Every structure is written in structure tokens, then in C-alpha cells.
């Protein structure tokens, strides 16, 4: 097996803002390494400093301490152009330039590769077309970027950063504002780029489910600590619960889902099989019941009938029959206070 190649590393990195003598350091010193071909999701609460960290890594903001090494050299040793040849960046700032075609946008990615007047050679054109093809934007080549959907524009932005041809890509919330389908498409594209093109990609996100299922590594930023590891390692270690410590949301270690800590109304038992049982349980959780035989206040039986399912609720006083989960939950909320 090939030796893993370090693309980016930082040590005792302090991020934050400095104005005059005032320094506002956002987080304790950070240490991490990103290897070639890794897709890394950065997760943390709003305002904790994800964007600041990404901006610091891309040189848009100076670190307040510590070192950042890219491809073996500290970032302070890079010239502007060499730095642009090593790291590409997509921010949350939407680019809406009217009359700009997708091709023109992607062409701007060649900026550090071209001469004084920005003249494109045949090779530049090939790289641009390759980036457009890789992101599935061939049909939009001549479209104006203001006329694209959010998902298409994000793909065009990724094509631009691909044309820049860097080993390392940094993206600030590439899936924000996208619908679910586009979110998955974008993350899948990033996954592909890291695996097939060997790109190292660091992106911040709030979509924990997507991050868990697609990324190789997660950087979890908490107020007083920084956790690094495969998503599964962080789940097993219980790190995600830290993320929701102060909120009503709870991360379910068993299946990677989220639940609200609702008001607890009692334990119930469910009998039945398969998908319908699973979703009935979810609905009852939402209504405030936990599945357990201990002191169960009622039993719900899910029965298959020819035209669907029916739900039978039994407790020591009564038996009720329902034809949908909705009816069951509505009845509970009215009758079982």
C-alpha cells in the first residue's frame, strides 16, 4: 500500500480576529492532519468558528498562532500564485454576476495558470471542459449563472475550483440552501472527486446524516474541544452527543438519527413486524412514549390486513382500533394526557 501523503496539517493553530491590540481567540489550539484523497466534513454549531477556520486555512485570514503546513511547506512561505495553485476555495457567498456564462465562470479557475492577459491555451480549454464534464454541467456550458438553480450554480462553482487544479479543496457549507436531492448529489460528487481524482476536500456542513454516510473523517468542533476521526468512531465514542448537550435534540447512537427529547408520557409495548412496526414506533416516540415492557401503560398491535394495516390499542380498560398511524397518534394526544 502506498504511503499516505499529508496534504494539509495544522498544529497549535489559534483562530480568531485581531484588531489593534485586541485579540479574540475563538477556540482552543487546534491540531489535525488531512491526507491525500480524504473527504473531511467539519461539523459544529453556528458561530463556533467553522468559517473562520476555513478562511484561515485558505489564507484569507491570518492565524493568531500556530502553523499551517500545505504540501510540506508553511503557508507563509507561499507566493500568492503558488498558494492559489495548491488550495481552492468555495465560500458561502453566492456568485451572481449577470451575463456571466458557466464557461466564463469555470475559466476564472485557470487564473493562476495563465499569463498577464489571461490568454487560454488548448490545454487550459481541455481542463475547463473536463471540469465541466466531471460536474455534469455540459448542458449548461452556455447558460448564464444567474439563470441556474442553486444546485446547478454550486456545481458550476465546483467546476471552477476543479479547473483551478489544486490538490486541496476547501468549501464552506457547499450544501446550504440546496434541496435534499441536490444536497446528496453535491456530496456524492465530492466523494467521487476525493476517491477518483485524489482530491483532499474539507467542507463544513450542518447535514450530519450526509456527513456521517459520505465522509472519511469528521472534524467536530466543540466549544472546548476538537474531535477528529471516522464518523463511526465519533459515534461509538459518543462525541456527537456533545454537540447537542444543551439542546432538546438527541443523537441516536444506534441508527444515526436525531430525536427531540420530548416530554416523557410513559412506556408502551408494540407487537408487529417489519416497516410498519418501525414507523409506528417512531411516531409513538414523537408523541412522547418509549418502547419498553417495564410498567407499560398500553400495548399496540400492528396487524396486516388485505388493504393495508390496522392498529389495535389495548390497555386494562379498553380496546381501540385505528386505520392509520395518524388516527392512532391523534387519539392518543386527545385521550391520554
Amino acid at each position, binding site marked *: 500500500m502506498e504511503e499516505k501523503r499529508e496534504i494539509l496539517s495544522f498544529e497549535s493553530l489559534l483562530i480568531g480576529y485581531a484588531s489593534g491590540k485586541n485579540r479574540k481567540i475563538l477556540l482552543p489550539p487546534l491540531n489535525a492532519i488531512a491526507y491525500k484523497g480524504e473527504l473531511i466534513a467539519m461539523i459544529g454549531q453556528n458561530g463556533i468558528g467553522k468559517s473562520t477556520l476555513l478562511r484561515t486555512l*485558505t*489564507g*484569507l485570514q491570518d492565524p493568531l498562532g500556530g502553523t499551517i503546513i500545505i504540501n510540506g511547506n508553511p503557508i507563509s512561505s507561499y507566493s*500568492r*500564485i503558488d*498558494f*492559489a*495553485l495548491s*488550495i*481552492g*476555495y468555495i*465560500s458561502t*457567498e453566492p*456568485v*451572481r*454576476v*449577470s*451575463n*456571466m*456564462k458557466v464557461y*466564463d465562470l469555470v475559466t*476564472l*479557475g485557470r*487564473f*493562476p495558470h*495563465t499569463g*498577464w*492577459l*489571461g490568454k487560454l491555451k488548448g490545454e487550459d480549454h481541455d481542463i475547463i*471542459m473536463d471540469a465541466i*464534464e466531471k460536474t455534469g454541467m*455540459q448542458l449548461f*456550458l*452556455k447558460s*448564464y449563472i*444567474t439563470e441556474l438553480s442553486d444546485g446547478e450554480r454550486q456545481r458550476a462553482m465546483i467546476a471552477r475550483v476543479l479547473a*483551478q487544479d489544486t490538490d486541496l479543496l476547501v468549501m464552506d457549507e457547499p450544501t446550504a440552501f440546496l434541496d435534499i436531492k441536490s444536497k446528496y448529489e453535491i456530496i456524492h460528487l465530492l466523494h467521487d472527486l476525493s476517491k477518483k481524482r485524489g482530491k483532499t476536500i474539507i467542507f463544513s456542513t450542518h447535514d450530519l446524516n450526509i456527513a456521517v454516510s459520505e465522509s472519511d473523517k469528521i472534524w467536530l468542533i466543540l466549544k472546548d474541544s476538537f474531535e477528529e476521526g471516522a464518523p463511526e468512531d465519533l459515534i461509538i465514542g459518543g462525541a456527537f452527543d456533545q454537540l447537542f448537550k444543551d439542546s432538546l435534540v438527541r443523537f441516536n447512537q444506534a441508527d444515526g438519527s436525531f430525536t427531540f427529547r420530548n416530554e416523557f408520557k410513559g412506556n408502551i409495548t408494540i407487537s408487529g413486524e417489519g416497516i410498519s412496526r418501525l414507523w409506528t414506533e417512531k411516531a409513538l416516540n414523537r408523541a412522547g412514549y418509549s418502547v419498553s415492557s417495564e410498567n407499560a401503560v398500553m400495548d399496540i398491535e400492528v396487524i396486516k390486513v388485505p388493504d393495508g394495516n390496522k392498529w389495535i390499542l389495548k390497555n386494562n380498560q379498553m380496546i381501540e382500533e385505528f386505520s392509520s398511524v395518524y388516527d392512532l397518534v391523534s387519539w392518543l394526544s386527545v385521550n391520554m394526557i
Partner: protein
Amino acid sequence: MKTDEIITNSRQKWQIRDKTLIFTGLLFLVIILFTLDIFFGSVSIKPSEVIHAIFNSSDKALETIIFKFRIPKALTALIVGIALSLSGLQMQTVFRNPMAGPYVLGISSGASLGVAFVILGFSSQISPGSIQGLGNWALAAASWLGAGAVMILIMFISVRVRDIMTVLILGIMLSSGISAIVSIMQYFTNETMLKAYVIWTMGSLGNLTYQQLQVLLISVCAGVILNVISVKMLNALLLGENYATSIGLNVRFARLIIFAGTSILAGSVTAFCGPIGFIGIAVPHIARIIFRTSDHKTLIPATIFIGGSVMLLSDIISQLPGSDSVLPVNSVTSLVGIPVVIWVILRNRKYSGAF
């Protein structure tokens, strides 16, 4: 994929041919308007007589009109149109503001302030007549400095205020403030200098001497060269400061070069022709409408051709062909430019922040 490539390539060839066609058309338009501008003036001269006067110098009076007035005026119109439009294009890109232009953001006012300092402040040291010689360059340089100072001020404002309309309002405030300063200077100056200044403010395209025209031409050429070499930087700045930095642009250096070019272009015109409004803001939009591109490699030549044409046309209209009265050229450019500006404002409500 192969067929796709062929389609793409042939489509690109088509577009290139289209573009060449439009540019050829624009070039002819400039030549035609330039010729017409020589034909029309406050003294009506038949076209045949104009041609006669150019090729055989028989009629001295006619020759004087053509060579001392008409041709310099047409040349001035061409240069002024190019200079103001290019400065508008650069400002719109640098400030990422479709409403930016030398007149509306107060750059012309800044240049006026520079001129006022020279005429009202120092012309007592250099006798009134000396404005002809070195005075022309002093006037131009003062304009550049005034324009540059306002550019930097507007840059500081637009870094802090993202909203386009707010920047615009602050630009208007700035212009008013500068006008107030100039008024105070006028109040405290003596009669001769005041007269010299008032004549300057009414300045039109027709009052330039050959020496002044020479200074204007050299400065505008320098401005155009600065503009052409910043074509790649301008394209990068379209994406905004962060993206421009991330693809390797030295934003500060780029701004310095572009500001210098813009100040020279807008400042020189203001120094010799007075403030001329709405050409700088409107022409770049006309260029974008015609070519539907954001690439400055196309927009710069397009703006040069269209700017020259629009200014020549405005000058022809201001001569009121067929009559012997002349309108101030500033009112004509406003009437030509304002509809374009209104159109841009209305269209832009859809996505504010875009241009």
C-alpha cells in the same frame, strides 16, 4: 462526447463570427458619426463644402471652422466618450455595483474640486494666461488627484456598506459636500478667477485648444493602456474580493492600478470639458446588453466603440442639426443615459447585489 465537442466548437466559431460582425458594425458607426459630427455645427455648411474645404484650401473662413473647431470638437467627443465609458466599466466591476459611474459616485465632483483648487487657488501665482502651457498638465493632475481621492473614499464606504443603493446615496452626499466646498471657495475668491472657473464649469466639448486636446489625448491613452493591462484582474474581481484572492489575485495591487486608470480617465475629461453625466454609467450596460457577456476582453473594446458613438451622437444632437442654436452637451448625455440607468434599477430589483 466527440460530437458534443464538435457542436461546442462550431457554436463557438459562430459566436466569434457574430462578435466580429458586431464589432465591424460598431467601427463603421463610429466613423459615420464622426463624419456627421464634422458636418453639423452652429454654422450650417453643406457636406460638399466641408469635403471641398478639407481637400482644397480655398475658403479661409470655412477652413478655420473645419480645422479649428469641428475636427477638434469631434475628436474631443470621441475621446471623452471612450474615457468616461471605460472609467464607468472599471468602477462597476471594482465596486461590484451596477450603479457606479464617475458622475453619480462623485468622482467628477472630486475632479472639479481639484480644478477649483488650481483655478481659484493658484492661478493668481501663475498669470491667467499661463493656463495654456504647463497649466494644462497642472489642471489635469489636480483633477486626477481629486478623482483618485474620491475613489478611495468610495472604496472605504463600499467595503463597509454592502448595499448598492446606500453607496449610491452616500456618493450623492459626497458630491453635494464637494460642491459646497467649491461654493465656499468661489465666495472667497476674486472676480477674475471666479469668471475663469465659471467658464470652466460650463465647459463643453468645443472649447479645447489643440494643446489641451493633446494633453487629453495623451492622458486618455495612458488610462486606456492601464485598463487593457488590467483585463484579467477585472475579470477576477467580478467574483468579489474573497474569490479573487483565492484564485491568486493581489486585490490591493489590482485596485491601485484600476483606480489610477479610472482617475486618469475621468479626471482628464472633467479637467477640460467639465462634468459630463451618465455616459460612464450607461454605456457599459449597453455593451453588456449587446454582447451578453461579463468578460472584459469583449467588454473593454465594446465599451470603447459604444462610448465613442454615444458621445458623438450626443454632440450631434446638441448641435440641433438644421438650426443655429446649441444645447449644452451635458443635458443631452443625461437624457440619453438616464433611461438606461432607470432600466438597470428596475431590472435589478430581482436580484439585488447582482449586475
